[in-house]
C-alpha cells in the first residue's frame, strides 16, 4: 500500500518536478554562460576581483529559483488533495493518518532534495572550472540558505493549503512570508556562515508543521 501512496504522489508531481529541475539547470547554464562571456571580454582577473573585493555575486540571479521550486511542488502535491477533500480517501486507508501524511511529505521533500542536489552538483562543478576552492566555498555558503528557503516554502505552503480556515490560511501566509525572508537577505558573500546551523535546525523542525493543519482538516475545523 505504501508503494501505491508513493506512486500517487509521484503522479502528481512528476512533470512539475522534472520541469522545475530542467528550468533550474537552464538557469545555472545561463549563469555560467554569462561568467564565460565576462571572462572573455573583461578577463578572469577582473571577474575574480569583482567577486572578492567589490561584492559581486555572479550567482545572484539564482536566488529565487529554489524558492519557486518549493512553492510549485507543494502546490501541485497538496492542492489536488483539498479539491472535494480528496485527502479524506487517504485517511480512510487502514494506515495511521499521521504516518500517511509524513510519508507523503517525506516523498515530496525527498524529491525536492534530489532536484536541489542535482542543481547544487551542477553549480559546484561549473564553479570549480572558473573559480578556486575558496570562492566556490563562499558561493556555496551564500546559496545554501536559498535552498533552505525552498524547503521552508514547501513546508509552509503544504501547511497553508491543508488548513481548512481561510482566515488562518491568510495568517499562516503572513508568518510564512516573513519567515522565508530570513533565508533570502542580501548580505555580502558568505555572510550567512554563522547562521546556517540555526537556519538548518529551523528548516528541519518546520518539516512536521503540516501535521497541525492536517489535524485541523481531519477534525473539520472551519
Amino acid at each position, binding site marked *: 500500500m505504501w508503494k501505491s501512496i508513493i506512486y500517487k504522489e509521484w503522479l502528481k508531481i512528476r512533470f512539475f518536478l522534472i520541469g522545475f529541475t530542467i528550468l533550474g539547470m537552464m538557469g545555472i547554464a545561463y549563469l555560467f554562460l554569462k561568467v564565460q562571456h565576462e*571572462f572573455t571580454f573583461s*578577463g*578572469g*582577473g*577582473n*571577474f*575574480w*576581483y569583482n567577486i*572578492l*573585493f567589490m561584492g559581486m555575486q555572479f550567482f545572484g540571479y539564482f536566488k529565487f529559483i529554489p524558492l519557486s521550486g518549493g512553492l510549485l511542488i507543494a502546490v501541485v502535491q497538496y492542492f489536488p488533495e483539498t479539491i472535494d477533500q480528496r485527502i479524506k480517501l487517504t485517511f480512510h486507508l487502514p494506515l495511521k493518518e*499521521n504516518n500517511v501524511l509524513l510519508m507523503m511529505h517525506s516523498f515530496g521533500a525527498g524529491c525536492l532534495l534530489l532536484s536541489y542536489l542535482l542543481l547544487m552538483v551542477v553549480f559546484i562543478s561549473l564553479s570549480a*572550472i*572558473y*573559480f*578556486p576552492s*575558496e*570562492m566556490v566555498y*563562499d558561493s556555496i555558503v551564500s546559496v545554501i540558505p536559498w535552498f533552505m528557503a525552498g524547503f521552508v516554502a514547501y513546508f509552509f505552503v503544504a*501547511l497553508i493549503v491543508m488548513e481548512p480556515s481561510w482566515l*488562518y490560511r491568510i*495568517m*499562516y501566509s503572513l*508568518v510564512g512570508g*516573513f*519567515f522565508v525572508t*530570513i533565508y533570502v*537577505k542580501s*548580505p*555580502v*558573500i*558568505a*555572510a*550567512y*556562515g*554563522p*547562521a546556517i546551523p*540555526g537556519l538548518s535546525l*529551523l528548516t528541519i*523542525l*518546520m518539516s*512536521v*508543521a*503540516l*501535521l*497541525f493543519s492536517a*489535524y*485541523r482538516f481531519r*477534525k473539520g*475545523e472551519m
Partner: protein
Amino acid sequence: MEKLSRIILVLVAILVLAMTLPMLYWMAFEQPVSKPFVLYSCLDDDFFIMRQGKPNTFEDTRGNKYTREKYEQKLPMMNFQQLMISGLMPDTIRGKAMDMHEIGLNRSFARFKPEDMNGPKPALFPLFESQSGRANIGMPDDFFRITWRVEFLDAATNKIREEKSQLFSAALYHNGFAFPATRIEGLPTTRKSCDEGYLIVDSSNQLFHLKMVKDKPYVRKISLPEGLRFKHIQCVDFKDKKYYAYLFSEKNEIFILTQDEYELVKLPITAFNAESCDLKIYGDLFNYNVTIDHEDHTDVVILDKDYKRVKSYQEGWPLISEHTEGKIFGYIFPAQLSLEDPNSKYINFYWKGSGGIGWVLLNLILVGVHLVILRRRNASLQGHAVDLAFVAVTGIYGFIAINLFQNKFFD
C-alpha cells in the same frame, strides 16, 4: 505529533514576531540620535563642536556660539580650501608659514567600523608590482593565497603558477614564516598612490611585510613585543608616508607601523573597543584628531605629530532606551531579534534585550488575559501550561503566536 508540530509553529511565529514587530515599531517611532562632531582648533587649542539640527549649530567647550563662517575660521586645517577661496586663511599658524602643498601632504583621514573586522574576509589577494615604473598601478592576472605555501592562481585558467608560487614560498620560508597565514591585510586596489604589498600574520603570530618588487619577493619580518597579537590591521595610503597601517591588538590597543623603519608605535588611546566603537582619525599639519564613538558617548583625543597626547574631550548622549520611544518599547517588548547587527557583516541571530524590566508587567497581564480566555472555554490549565510559559517568557510575541496557532483541539 500534532502537539509537537504546533509547538514548532508557535516557536517559528515567536521568532518572526520578535523580528517584525520591533522593526515596525522602530520604523514608526525611532528618532535620530544627534551625535556631536568634535574637532580641535590649532588656533585656540580648544575643541569646537558642530551639532546637527535645523539649523546646525556651532560652539566651543565653554558654550560660546559661532556662525558657520567663524567656526570654519577656527578650524583652518579642516577648512583650508574654503578659507583660501574666502581669503580668510591665516598666513602663519603657530609661527609656521602656511604652505598649501605642505597642508595637503599632512592631511589624512582613516575610518574604522567594527563591521570592517567582523565579516567574511577574502582568502585570495592580488599582489601588485610595487616598482613597475608606470604611473598607474596595474591589476595582476593572478591572485595569491597562503596555505601550506604561497600559491598564485592564474585567474584565466584557474591553475596554479608553479614557478612564481615556489619563488614566493621560499622567500617567506627563509624569513622564518610559519605557514599558513592567519591574516593577510593590505590595500587590494589599483586606486592608491603606490603599492606597499601586504602585512601578513603567520600561524605563530609573527608579522611579515610582503610585496613584489620587479617580479621578485620582498619579505621583511617585523619584530613584535612578546605576546602581542592583532585582531585587526587596517593599511593606509597617506601622502606623508609616515606609516603603513593601524594595528589593533587583542587588548584594544592601537599601534601604527612606521614606514621603512618598521617600528611599532602605541598610540596613547585607552577608550577604544574594536568590537563596538567607530574610530575616525583626522591628521593635519599639527595634530591627529582621534574620535572614538561609543554607543552613548564620544571620546576625542588629540595627539601631536610625535603621537603624544595633547588634550581630550568627552561628551555623552542618552541611549535610545532612555528616550520616550525607547522606554515605551521596554514596556511592550521583552527583547528584539534581528538577523543583522550594525557591528557585523555576518548574518546571525542577534538578540538584544529591550532594557529594564517594564515588559514583565505586560507579560503578566497577557498571562492573565490568556487565563481568562481559557476559563471561558472551560479549558484545562494542565493542557495549556506550555502556552502559558510561552506568554510568561516571550510576552506579546508568545501571546500572538499561541492564538495564531490555537491549542483548542487538545482540550
